[in-house]
Protein backbone atom coordinates (compact mmCIF):
# COMPACT_ATOMS: atom_id res chain seq x y z
CA UNK A 1 0.00 0.00 0.00
CA UNK A 2 1.43 3.37 -0.97
CA UNK A 3 1.64 6.15 1.61
CA UNK A 4 -0.70 9.06 1.20
CA UNK A 5 1.09 12.19 -0.11
CA UNK A 6 1.33 15.20 2.17
CA UNK A 7 -0.68 18.38 1.54
CA UNK A 8 2.43 20.13 0.21
CA UNK A 9 3.17 17.25 -2.14
CA UNK A 10 -0.45 17.18 -3.34
CA UNK A 11 -0.36 20.93 -3.94
CA UNK A 12 2.91 20.56 -5.85
CA UNK A 13 1.46 17.79 -8.03
CA UNK A 14 -1.65 19.86 -8.68
CA UNK A 15 0.40 22.94 -9.67
CA UNK A 16 2.72 20.89 -11.88
CA UNK A 17 -0.28 19.31 -13.61
CA UNK A 18 -1.80 22.76 -14.07
CA UNK A 19 1.42 24.13 -15.55
CA UNK A 20 1.46 21.22 -17.99
CA UNK A 21 -2.17 21.78 -18.96
CA UNK A 22 -1.57 25.47 -19.61
CA UNK A 23 1.44 24.90 -21.85
CA UNK A 24 0.34 21.65 -23.47
CA UNK A 25 -1.24 23.13 -26.60
CA UNK A 26 1.59 25.54 -27.21
CA UNK A 27 4.56 23.31 -26.43
CA UNK A 28 3.87 19.73 -25.31
CA UNK A 29 7.55 18.77 -25.04
CA UNK A 30 8.27 21.43 -22.43
CA UNK A 31 4.87 21.01 -20.76
CA UNK A 32 5.60 17.34 -20.06
CA UNK A 33 9.17 18.14 -19.06
CA UNK A 34 8.06 20.61 -16.41
CA UNK A 35 5.59 18.22 -14.87
CA UNK A 36 7.95 15.24 -14.85
CA UNK A 37 10.78 17.23 -13.28
CA UNK A 38 8.58 18.09 -10.29
CA UNK A 39 8.13 14.37 -9.62
CA UNK A 40 11.89 13.96 -9.19
CA UNK A 41 12.18 16.44 -6.32
CA UNK A 42 12.20 14.64 -2.99
CA UNK A 43 11.56 17.56 -0.64
CA UNK A 44 7.86 18.50 -0.60
CA UNK A 45 8.40 22.22 -0.04
CA UNK A 46 11.01 22.44 -2.80
CA UNK A 47 8.68 20.51 -5.11
CA UNK A 48 5.91 23.01 -4.41
CA UNK A 49 8.21 25.97 -5.06
CA UNK A 50 9.38 24.35 -8.27
CA UNK A 51 5.82 23.64 -9.40
CA UNK A 52 4.68 27.21 -8.66
CA UNK A 53 7.56 28.51 -10.74
CA UNK A 54 6.49 26.15 -13.52
CA UNK A 55 2.98 27.62 -13.43
CA UNK A 56 4.44 31.14 -13.82
CA UNK A 57 6.74 29.96 -16.62
CA UNK A 58 3.96 28.23 -18.53
CA UNK A 59 1.67 31.26 -18.32
CA UNK A 60 4.55 33.50 -19.42
CA UNK A 61 5.19 31.26 -22.42
CA UNK A 62 1.53 31.17 -23.40
CA UNK A 63 1.17 34.95 -23.11
CA UNK A 64 4.35 35.42 -25.10
CA UNK A 65 2.88 33.25 -27.82
CA UNK A 66 -0.18 35.51 -28.13
CA UNK A 67 0.44 37.60 -31.19
CA UNK A 68 -2.35 40.00 -30.46
CA UNK A 69 -3.16 41.74 -27.23
CA UNK A 70 -6.82 42.09 -28.21
CA UNK A 71 -7.84 38.45 -27.64
CA UNK A 72 -6.43 38.63 -24.12
CA UNK A 73 -8.25 41.91 -23.50
CA UNK A 74 -11.43 40.46 -24.98
CA UNK A 75 -11.26 37.52 -22.63
CA UNK A 76 -10.76 39.82 -19.65
CA UNK A 77 -13.83 41.82 -20.74
CA UNK A 78 -15.71 38.59 -21.11
CA UNK A 79 -14.69 37.62 -17.58
CA UNK A 80 -15.92 40.99 -16.28
CA UNK A 81 -19.23 40.61 -18.10
CA UNK A 82 -19.58 37.08 -16.75
CA UNK A 83 -19.10 38.30 -13.22
CA UNK A 84 -21.53 41.15 -13.80
CA UNK A 85 -24.24 38.85 -15.11
CA UNK A 86 -23.57 36.20 -12.51
CA UNK A 87 -23.70 38.55 -9.55
CA UNK A 88 -27.00 40.04 -10.66
CA UNK A 89 -29.10 36.90 -10.14
CA UNK A 90 -26.98 35.77 -7.22
CA UNK A 91 -27.42 39.09 -5.44
CA UNK A 92 -31.17 38.48 -5.51
CA UNK A 93 -30.65 35.29 -3.57
CA UNK A 94 -28.42 36.98 -1.04
CA UNK A 95 -30.95 39.80 -0.63
CA UNK A 96 -33.74 37.31 -0.05
CA UNK A 97 -31.72 35.51 2.57
CA UNK A 98 -31.01 38.76 4.35
CA UNK A 99 -34.70 39.68 4.30
CA UNK A 100 -35.66 36.36 5.81
CA UNK A 101 -32.91 36.34 8.38
CA UNK A 102 -33.28 39.87 9.64
CA UNK A 103 -36.94 40.47 8.80
CA UNK A 104 -36.11 43.56 6.77
CA UNK A 105 -38.92 45.36 5.00
CA UNK A 106 -38.91 44.30 1.35
CA UNK A 107 -39.01 47.82 0.06
CA UNK A 108 -36.13 48.00 -2.36
CA UNK A 109 -37.26 47.18 -5.88
CA UNK A 110 -34.69 46.27 -8.52
CA UNK A 111 -36.62 46.57 -11.75
CA UNK A 112 -33.70 45.68 -14.00
CA UNK A 113 -33.14 42.25 -12.49
CA UNK A 114 -34.72 39.12 -13.83
CA UNK A 115 -36.53 38.85 -10.51
CA UNK A 116 -38.63 41.77 -11.54
CA UNK A 117 -39.61 40.12 -14.81
CA UNK A 118 -40.55 36.87 -13.15
CA UNK A 119 -42.60 38.60 -10.49
CA UNK A 120 -44.45 40.86 -12.86
CA UNK A 121 -45.22 38.57 -15.69
CA UNK A 122 -45.22 35.09 -14.24
CA UNK A 123 -45.71 35.05 -10.51
CA UNK A 124 -47.88 38.00 -9.61
CA UNK A 125 -51.60 37.48 -9.62
CA UNK A 126 -53.63 40.09 -11.52
CA UNK A 127 -55.23 41.66 -8.43
CA UNK A 128 -51.83 42.41 -6.97
CA UNK A 129 -50.41 43.88 -10.17
CA UNK A 130 -50.05 47.60 -9.93
CA UNK A 131 -50.24 47.78 -6.16
CA UNK A 132 -47.24 46.54 -4.25
CA UNK A 133 -46.14 43.87 -6.63
CA UNK A 134 -42.42 44.70 -6.33
CA UNK A 135 -42.11 43.24 -2.89
CA UNK A 136 -40.87 39.80 -2.24
CA UNK A 137 -44.11 38.90 -0.43
CA UNK A 138 -46.10 39.38 -3.59
CA UNK A 139 -44.60 36.39 -5.39
CA UNK A 140 -46.24 33.06 -4.89
CA UNK A 141 -43.03 31.07 -5.14
CA UNK A 142 -40.21 33.37 -4.01
CA UNK A 143 -37.80 30.52 -3.37
CA UNK A 144 -38.36 29.06 -6.80
CA UNK A 145 -37.44 32.42 -8.30
CA UNK A 146 -34.28 32.59 -6.22
CA UNK A 147 -33.30 29.02 -7.03
CA UNK A 148 -33.70 29.85 -10.73
CA UNK A 149 -31.64 32.97 -10.27
CA UNK A 150 -28.90 31.08 -8.47
CA UNK A 151 -28.94 28.51 -11.27
CA UNK A 152 -28.57 31.16 -13.95
CA UNK A 153 -25.77 32.85 -11.99
CA UNK A 154 -23.91 29.56 -11.55
CA UNK A 155 -24.34 28.75 -15.23
CA UNK A 156 -22.80 32.06 -16.19
CA UNK A 157 -19.90 31.56 -13.81
CA UNK A 158 -19.22 28.01 -14.98
CA UNK A 159 -19.52 28.75 -18.71
CA UNK A 160 -17.63 32.05 -18.39
CA UNK A 161 -14.80 30.37 -16.52
CA UNK A 162 -14.41 27.76 -19.25
CA UNK A 163 -14.35 30.43 -21.94
CA UNK A 164 -11.76 32.48 -20.08
CA UNK A 165 -9.70 29.30 -19.70
CA UNK A 166 -9.59 29.27 -23.52
CA UNK A 167 -11.87 26.28 -23.93
CA UNK A 168 -13.66 27.34 -27.02
CA UNK A 169 -16.18 24.50 -26.79
CA UNK A 170 -18.05 26.33 -24.02
CA UNK A 171 -18.19 29.56 -25.92
CA UNK A 172 -21.47 28.98 -27.84
CA UNK A 173 -23.22 28.03 -24.58
CA UNK A 174 -21.95 31.10 -22.78
CA UNK A 175 -22.51 33.49 -25.61
CA UNK A 176 -25.94 32.02 -26.30
CA UNK A 177 -26.89 32.41 -22.63
CA UNK A 178 -25.89 36.07 -22.60
CA UNK A 179 -27.65 36.91 -25.85
CA UNK A 180 -30.76 34.95 -24.83
CA UNK A 181 -30.91 36.79 -21.52
CA UNK A 182 -30.48 40.16 -23.16
CA UNK A 183 -33.14 39.42 -25.75
CA UNK A 184 -35.38 38.02 -23.03
CA UNK A 185 -34.98 41.13 -20.90
CA UNK A 186 -35.53 43.35 -23.88
CA UNK A 187 -38.68 41.53 -24.97
CA UNK A 188 -40.24 41.13 -21.54
CA UNK A 189 -39.29 44.42 -19.97
CA UNK A 190 -39.50 46.78 -22.90
CA UNK A 191 -41.61 45.40 -25.72
CA UNK A 192 -44.16 43.56 -23.62
CA UNK A 193 -44.42 46.36 -21.12
CA UNK A 194 -44.74 48.94 -23.87
CA UNK A 195 -47.61 47.01 -25.42
CA UNK A 196 -49.36 46.59 -22.11
CA UNK A 197 -48.64 50.13 -21.03
CA UNK A 198 -49.97 51.70 -24.19
CA UNK A 199 -52.77 49.39 -25.22
CA UNK A 200 -54.17 47.54 -22.30
CA UNK A 201 -53.13 48.76 -18.89
CA UNK A 202 -52.96 52.43 -19.63
CA UNK A 203 -56.36 53.29 -18.18
CA UNK A 204 -56.73 50.34 -15.89
CA UNK A 205 -53.74 50.76 -13.63
CA UNK A 206 -53.31 54.05 -11.91
CA UNK A 207 -49.94 53.01 -10.51
CA UNK A 208 -48.23 52.90 -13.88
CA UNK A 209 -49.90 56.05 -15.10
CA UNK A 210 -48.85 58.00 -12.05
CA UNK A 211 -45.26 56.87 -12.35
CA UNK A 212 -43.96 58.65 -15.42
CA UNK A 213 -40.41 57.92 -14.27
CA UNK A 214 -41.10 54.31 -14.87
CA UNK A 215 -41.53 54.86 -18.59
CA UNK A 216 -38.24 56.76 -18.72
CA UNK A 217 -36.66 53.92 -16.84
CA UNK A 218 -37.88 51.47 -19.45
CA UNK A 219 -36.33 53.56 -22.22
CA UNK A 220 -33.03 53.54 -20.37
CA UNK A 221 -33.35 49.77 -19.97
CA UNK A 222 -33.81 49.49 -23.73
CA UNK A 223 -30.65 51.49 -24.41
CA UNK A 224 -28.79 49.61 -21.74
CA UNK A 225 -29.75 46.28 -23.25
CA UNK A 226 -28.85 47.40 -26.76
CA UNK A 227 -25.35 48.54 -25.95
CA UNK A 228 -24.67 45.45 -23.86
CA UNK A 229 -25.77 43.34 -26.79
CA UNK A 230 -23.50 45.25 -29.18
CA UNK A 231 -20.51 44.99 -26.82
CA UNK A 232 -21.09 41.27 -26.31
CA UNK A 233 -21.38 40.69 -30.06
CA UNK A 234 -18.13 42.57 -30.74
CA UNK A 235 -16.25 40.70 -28.01
CA UNK A 236 -17.71 37.42 -29.18
CA UNK A 237 -16.61 38.12 -32.72
CA UNK A 238 -13.03 38.87 -31.65
CA UNK A 239 -12.81 35.75 -29.46
CA UNK A 240 -14.33 33.43 -32.05
CA UNK A 241 -12.07 34.79 -34.79
CA UNK A 242 -9.10 34.28 -32.50
CA UNK A 243 -10.15 30.69 -31.79
CA UNK A 244 -10.61 29.99 -35.49
CA UNK A 245 -7.15 31.43 -36.18
CA UNK A 246 -5.66 29.13 -33.54
CA UNK A 247 -7.47 26.08 -34.87
CA UNK A 248 -6.29 26.88 -38.41
CA UNK A 249 -2.71 27.28 -37.19
Amino acid at each position, binding site marked *: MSARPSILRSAALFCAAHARRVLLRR*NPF*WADGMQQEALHIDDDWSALQ*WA*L*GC*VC*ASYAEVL*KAERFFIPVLARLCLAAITLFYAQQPLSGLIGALECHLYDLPHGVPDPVALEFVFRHFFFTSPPNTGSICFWLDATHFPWLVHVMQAGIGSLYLAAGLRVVQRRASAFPLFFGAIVATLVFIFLTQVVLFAIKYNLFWYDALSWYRENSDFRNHMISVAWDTCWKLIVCLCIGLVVSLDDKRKIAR
Partner: protein
Amino acid sequence: MARTPNASRQTRTLFAEMLKMPGKWRYGYELSRETKLLSGTLYPLLIRLSDQGLLEAKWEEPEKPGKPPRHAYRLTADGVVFARTLQKKAVRPALRPRLAGALS
Protein backbone atom coordinates in the same frame (compact mmCIF):
# COMPACT_ATOMS: atom_id res chain seq x y z
CA MET B 1 20.93 51.25 -27.94
CA ALA B 2 20.07 47.73 -29.07
CA ARG B 3 20.25 45.03 -26.41
CA THR B 4 22.73 42.24 -26.86
CA PRO B 5 20.74 39.01 -27.16
CA ASN B 6 21.02 36.51 -24.31
CA ALA B 7 23.12 38.89 -22.24
CA SER B 8 20.95 39.15 -19.15
CA ARG B 9 22.47 38.27 -15.79
CA GLN B 10 20.33 35.15 -15.51
CA THR B 11 21.31 33.91 -18.96
CA ARG B 12 24.97 34.51 -18.28
CA THR B 13 24.69 32.64 -14.98
CA LEU B 14 23.08 29.71 -16.76
CA PHE B 15 25.71 29.72 -19.51
CA ALA B 16 28.50 29.89 -16.94
CA GLU B 17 27.07 26.91 -15.08
CA MET B 18 26.63 24.87 -18.23
CA LEU B 19 30.14 25.72 -19.44
CA LYS B 20 31.61 24.02 -16.38
CA MET B 21 30.76 20.66 -17.95
CA PRO B 22 29.76 21.44 -21.54
CA GLY B 23 29.28 17.88 -22.76
CA LYS B 24 27.35 16.60 -19.74
CA TRP B 25 23.60 16.31 -19.72
CA ARG B 26 22.10 18.29 -16.82
CA TYR B 27 18.69 18.21 -15.19
CA GLY B 28 16.46 21.25 -14.70
CA TYR B 29 16.28 21.02 -10.92
CA GLU B 30 20.04 20.50 -10.69
CA LEU B 31 20.63 23.62 -12.80
CA SER B 32 18.18 25.55 -10.65
CA ARG B 33 20.03 24.62 -7.46
CA GLU B 34 23.45 25.42 -8.89
CA THR B 35 22.49 28.75 -10.46
CA LYS B 36 19.94 29.76 -7.77
CA LEU B 37 17.50 30.50 -10.54
CA LEU B 38 13.87 29.65 -9.80
CA SER B 39 11.97 27.45 -12.19
CA GLY B 40 9.84 30.43 -13.28
CA THR B 41 13.01 32.09 -14.58
CA LEU B 42 14.88 28.99 -15.66
CA TYR B 43 12.28 27.41 -17.93
CA PRO B 44 11.65 30.47 -20.14
CA LEU B 45 15.42 30.72 -20.54
CA LEU B 46 15.81 27.06 -21.44
CA ILE B 47 12.92 27.22 -23.90
CA ARG B 48 14.32 30.33 -25.56
CA LEU B 49 17.86 28.95 -25.84
CA SER B 50 16.49 25.69 -27.21
CA ASP B 51 14.47 27.58 -29.84
CA GLN B 52 17.62 29.46 -30.82
CA GLY B 53 19.54 26.22 -31.22
CA LEU B 54 21.99 27.00 -28.43
CA LEU B 55 20.71 24.25 -26.15
CA GLU B 56 19.57 20.73 -26.77
CA ALA B 57 17.07 18.86 -24.66
CA LYS B 58 16.14 15.20 -24.54
CA TRP B 59 14.18 12.73 -22.48
CA GLU B 60 16.36 10.65 -20.22
CA GLU B 61 15.40 7.46 -18.48
CA PRO B 62 15.44 7.82 -14.69
CA GLU B 63 18.23 6.46 -12.54
CA LYS B 64 15.83 5.40 -9.78
CA PRO B 65 13.18 2.82 -10.64
CA GLY B 66 9.56 3.91 -10.38
CA LYS B 67 10.26 7.48 -11.45
CA PRO B 68 9.13 8.88 -14.79
CA PRO B 69 11.59 9.99 -17.50
CA ARG B 70 12.87 13.53 -17.18
CA HIS B 71 14.38 16.23 -19.34
CA ALA B 72 18.13 16.63 -19.63
CA TYR B 73 19.90 19.59 -21.19
CA ARG B 74 23.30 20.49 -22.57
CA LEU B 75 24.74 23.20 -24.77
CA THR B 76 25.06 22.56 -28.49
CA ALA B 77 28.34 23.30 -30.27
CA ASP B 78 26.95 26.72 -31.25
CA GLY B 79 25.83 27.22 -27.66
CA VAL B 80 29.31 26.51 -26.31
CA VAL B 81 30.87 28.99 -28.76
CA PHE B 82 28.25 31.61 -27.92
CA ALA B 83 28.66 31.08 -24.17
CA ARG B 84 32.44 31.40 -24.36
CA THR B 85 32.17 34.58 -26.44
CA LEU B 86 29.71 35.99 -23.95
CA GLN B 87 31.95 35.07 -21.06
CA LYS B 88 34.90 36.92 -22.63
CA LYS B 89 32.80 40.00 -23.31
CA ALA B 90 31.26 40.07 -19.90
CA VAL B 91 34.09 41.56 -17.93
CA ARG B 92 32.25 43.61 -15.38
CA PRO B 93 33.92 46.82 -14.21
CA ALA B 94 34.61 46.76 -10.52
CA LEU B 95 32.86 50.09 -10.00
CA ARG B 96 30.66 52.25 -12.16
CA PRO B 97 32.66 55.16 -13.68
CA ARG B 98 30.81 57.92 -11.79
CA LEU B 99 31.12 56.11 -8.49
CA ALA B 100 34.78 55.37 -9.15
CA GLY B 101 35.39 59.04 -9.97
CA ALA B 102 33.67 60.19 -6.81
CA LEU B 103 35.71 57.85 -4.67
CA SER B 104 39.03 58.87 -6.25
